């Protein structure tokens, strides 16, 4: 048999005919088209039973009720809970993307101890027993040396049982150094204490107000409880309630307002007092709400006459008089303050001036007015047991100096920590514990804070996330995230009611993390003695249930407990004097001709919680583009400096220098530049790290002379074309 070319071709043709008549090509075609339409590596969530679990969001102080849609045991969507007294079905972009906090790559998945240099990111996973053992050993040794006061704790809040357990641990251990991160809450508490003479906070009946005068408050940018505010904005539009936004910059809130009043930054208090002066001069003041008005009347009328105020604020006399008349003639006018999201302390002078305006309307503690609300008092634990070591430690002054001497009015002064650590403190700090806070990013002059941490030999982070402060720690004891745990969420955030939400575990813990409350109870029991005695609870859940007492059943059933018939913090506003000093701005106008102000955006989370990957994608490319952060500048100022849109420039302030891009913006006053807060992370994940500039590294703390609170609202700066 001879196989020649023809035979071979014949074989091939036969093969081709056979193949065509077999299913092979047709089936392969079908399969490859299916394959190419649904890549096997495309993730497809598994199917399963749909259930909804109600809980409370605690990513910001807003306290919204949420409903989490689950497929089997996997949470797939967070929605606002319909009918909830705070958000009634609404949800913000952060709350919506909360699942990226739960399942995202930024989680710390197990207790870890540092292996390499501090901050080098080399960790070793250890067991909880070993981790708690390490910390207990350190703490016990310090206590035995009667140096309990050299342990400090930084917490993001002091509301609710979890922060209260940390504060209690510090007290029982013998340290006066429980330090809350700075926020507008500091100023609000101080203003209520000063003006009403009692401890408390303010609440605003926004829904029933018929005239809103906002002094830089980001009513549509995340101020207070953000979802409630957005709903209120819509309600005001519907009811044609005038909204006047006083703001140096055309923020979203200003754009949404009925009237935008551009103002010279830092002169808001002058304007508020100027409006008060017009109201008094024109006899438009409500009766009896402000006591001591007689004492300040003359000063107001002379020092804050519209002509004078117009000069300093840049707001025209006509505008001042018109706003004053409209404000006074409205039935239920409300004045708001606390810049942006109200996440930073403000000048007491400004806050008191705005609260005075509310007082002058006669609507204090009335429908549609400002309320002074007594602190929530549901946490009633027995006094901590104090042994010798605890008593000795608690006799020591606070490390940050709060509560004594020139800082007698302040409760927490975290910005004083770096200075103290760098040799000006009363004693060294041996152990620092950080919970629900990221001061290495969110504090003014964050770089100095980070550098000062070198002076602390042992740092413990309870953070659930791989944030900048956790990166500087020696021991990580990760907390559950809010969707994995029980916690009470008392809501202040400007609500005119006492409201407590309940966070419930929506899914079982995803990693080897532990509830902070549980960790503290375990730690207290391990330290033993009177510390253990102060923590008699078997576990956190028992503690929570006992603390909430009769509220527990309501909270388990409804998810929220509201008391509209709450105790007020005094009924009348007392204005003793107008001599509260203003907060100056850092930097010399000669060297630094511009004024840099940070601004808040609802799309950028800037506190302990970092922006989620979803949120960062929504940030405009005039704020960040690629890795570059932008600074907003008026085209006129930019023109004088030879800068045009998108140019690279070097931004210098007395505190630092950063490369930025320029975004020309008509909505900002000439001479003022603005940058978004919450960017420029170095930690977290690839979605957030190395994007933009952390404006907190360019701004230093400026203490309010009347309290010592860090009330910096900007800094002088210069821009040079790069």
């Amino acid at each position, binding site marked *: *048999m001879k196989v020649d070319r023809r035979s071979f071709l*014949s074989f091939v043709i*036969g093969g081709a005919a*056979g193949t065509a008549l*077999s299913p*092979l090509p047709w089936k392969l075609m079908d399969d490859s088209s299916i*394959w190419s339409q649904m890549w096997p590596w495309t993730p497809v969530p598994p199917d399963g039973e749909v259930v909804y679990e109600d809980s409370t969001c605690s990513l910001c102080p807003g306290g919204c009720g949420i409903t989490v849609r689950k497929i089997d045991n996997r949470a797939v969507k967070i929605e606002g809970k319909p009918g909830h007294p705070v958000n009634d079905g609404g949800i913000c972009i952060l709350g919506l993307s909360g699942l990226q906090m739960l399942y995202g790559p930024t989680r710390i998945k197990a207790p870890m101890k540092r292996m390499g240099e501090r901050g080098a990111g080399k960790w070793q996973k250890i067991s909880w027993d070993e981790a708690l053992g390490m910390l207990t050993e350190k703490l016990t040794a310090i206590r035995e040396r009667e140096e309990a006061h050299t342990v400090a704790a930084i917490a993001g809040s002091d509301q609710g049982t979890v922060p209260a357990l940390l504060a209690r641990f510090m007290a029982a251990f013998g340290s006066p150094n429980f330090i809350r991160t700075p926020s507008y809450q500091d100023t609000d508490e101080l203003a209520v204490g000063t003006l009403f003479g009692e401890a408390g906070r303010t609440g605003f009946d926004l829904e029933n107000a018929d005239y809103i005068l906002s002094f830089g408050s980001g009513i549509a940018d995340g101020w207070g409880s953000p979802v409630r505010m957005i709903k209120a904005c819509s309600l005001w539009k519907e009811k044609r309630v005038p909204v006047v936004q006083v703001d140096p910059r055309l923020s979203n809130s200003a754009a949404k307002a009925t009237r935008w009043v551009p103002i010279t930054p830092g002169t808001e208090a002058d304007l508020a007092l100027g409006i008060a002066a017009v109201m008094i001069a024109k006899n438009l003041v409500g009766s009896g709400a402000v006591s001591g008005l007689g004492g300040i009347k003359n000063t107001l009328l002379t020092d804050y006459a519209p002509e004078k105020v117009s000069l300093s604020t840049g707001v025209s006399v006509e505008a001042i008089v018109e706003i004053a008349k409209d404000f006074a003639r409205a039935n239920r006018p409300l004045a708001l303050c606390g810049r942006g999201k109200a996440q930073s302390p403000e000048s007491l002078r400004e806050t008191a001036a705005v609260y005075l305006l509310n007082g002058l309307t006669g609507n204090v503690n009335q429908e549609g007015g400002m309320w002074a609300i007594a602190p929530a008092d549901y946490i009633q634990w027995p006094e901590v047991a104090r042994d010798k070591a605890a008593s000795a430690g608690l006799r020591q002054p606070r490390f940050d100096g709060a509560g004594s001497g020139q800082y007698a009015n302040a409760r927490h002064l975290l910005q004083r920590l770096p200075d103290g650590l760098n040799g000006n403190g009363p004693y060294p700090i041996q152990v620092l514990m950080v919970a629900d806070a990221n001061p290495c990013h969110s504090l003014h002059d964050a770089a100095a804070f980070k550098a000062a941490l070198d002076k602390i030999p042992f740092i413990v982070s309870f953070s659930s996330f791989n944030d900048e402060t956790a990166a500087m720690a020696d021991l990580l004891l990760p907390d559950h995230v809010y969707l994995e745990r029980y916690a009470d969420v008392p809501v202040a955030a400007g609500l005119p009611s006492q409201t407590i939400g309940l966070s419930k575990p929506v899914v079982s813990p995803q990693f080897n993390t532990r509830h902070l409350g549980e960790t503290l109870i375990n730690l207290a029991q391990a330290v033993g003695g009177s510390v253990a005695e102060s923590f008699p609870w078997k576990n956190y859940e028992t503690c929570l249930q006992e603390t909430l007492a009769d509220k527990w059943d309501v909270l388990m059933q409804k998810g929220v407990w509201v008391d509209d018939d709450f105790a007020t913090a005094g009924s009348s506003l007392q204005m003793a004097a107008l001599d509260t000093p203003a907060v100056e701005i850092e930097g010399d106008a000669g060297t630094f001709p511009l004024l840099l102000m940070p601004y808040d955006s609802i799309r950028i989370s800037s506190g302990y919680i970092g922006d989620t990957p979803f949120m960062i994608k929504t940030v405009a490319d005039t704020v960040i583009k690629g890795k570059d952060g932008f600074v907003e500048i008026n085209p006129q100022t930019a023109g004088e400096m030879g800068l045009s849109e998108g140019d690279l420039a070097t931004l210098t302030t007395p505190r630092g220098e950063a490369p930025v891009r320029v975004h020309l913006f008509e909505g900002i006053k000439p001479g003022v530049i603005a940058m978004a807060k919450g960017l420029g992370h170095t930690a977290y994940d690839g979605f957030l790290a190395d994007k933009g500039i952390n404006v907190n590294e360019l701004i230093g703390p400026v203490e309010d002379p009347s309290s010592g609170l860090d009330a910096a609202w900007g800094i002088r700066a210069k821009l040079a074309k790069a």
Partner: protein
Amino acid sequence: MSTLDEKATEVMDDDSAHAKGANESGASGYIILFFIIGFAASMVLGWVAFPKLLYSQKQQPFSFNHAMHVAEVNNGCESCHFFRDDGSFSGIPKLAQCTGCHDETMGESEAEATFVEQYVWEEREVPWYSYSRQPDCVFFSHAAHVVGAKMDCVTCHGHIGESESSRPYEYNRITGYSRDIWGKNIAGLKKNSWDRMKMDDCAQCHKEAGIVHTSSVQTKRDACFVCHK
């Protein structure tokens, strides 16, 4: 067999072409033979070897006896494969449904021992392979078919309820889908309604039942988005 020499001769010497011409009638026989060989080989490859290569087999975690369970329960298939309160279909039962009876070993079969020891006591879900899972691009509602159109399970799933053991799960190496979707028959032929579950099979039934299915204005039949959401 041809050699290099012969090829060389073929090029160099024209006469040799005549010699080849003389052999043509004998060669045409070979040509047909080779055609048949090629044809037969590719048919064997396409019909026999290809399906074996295309599909891979996996054994279920342990054998399940449908027939025995159906005899024990009161409500037929729906006893275990039920509709949830929201109307969605539960599909393959979760461990929680089984543990009502199976918290301890029942009977002496090997499968039962595996189930109780490895899954019930360990509180681990059984990783069943699903013979009938549709591609991810298909939205299929059991409620619309079983509750709405009152179809029975057998129409699509065949007599699985009478099976006494679990057959191996066969899946397509390219697409990753169960063989039951294309059907056991590699040619794609079917005798019974449950033999295949490709789009054409859905379409056929939808066309036959076609009175109410007119979501597409153009075709007066079901539109694409009815199944492809």
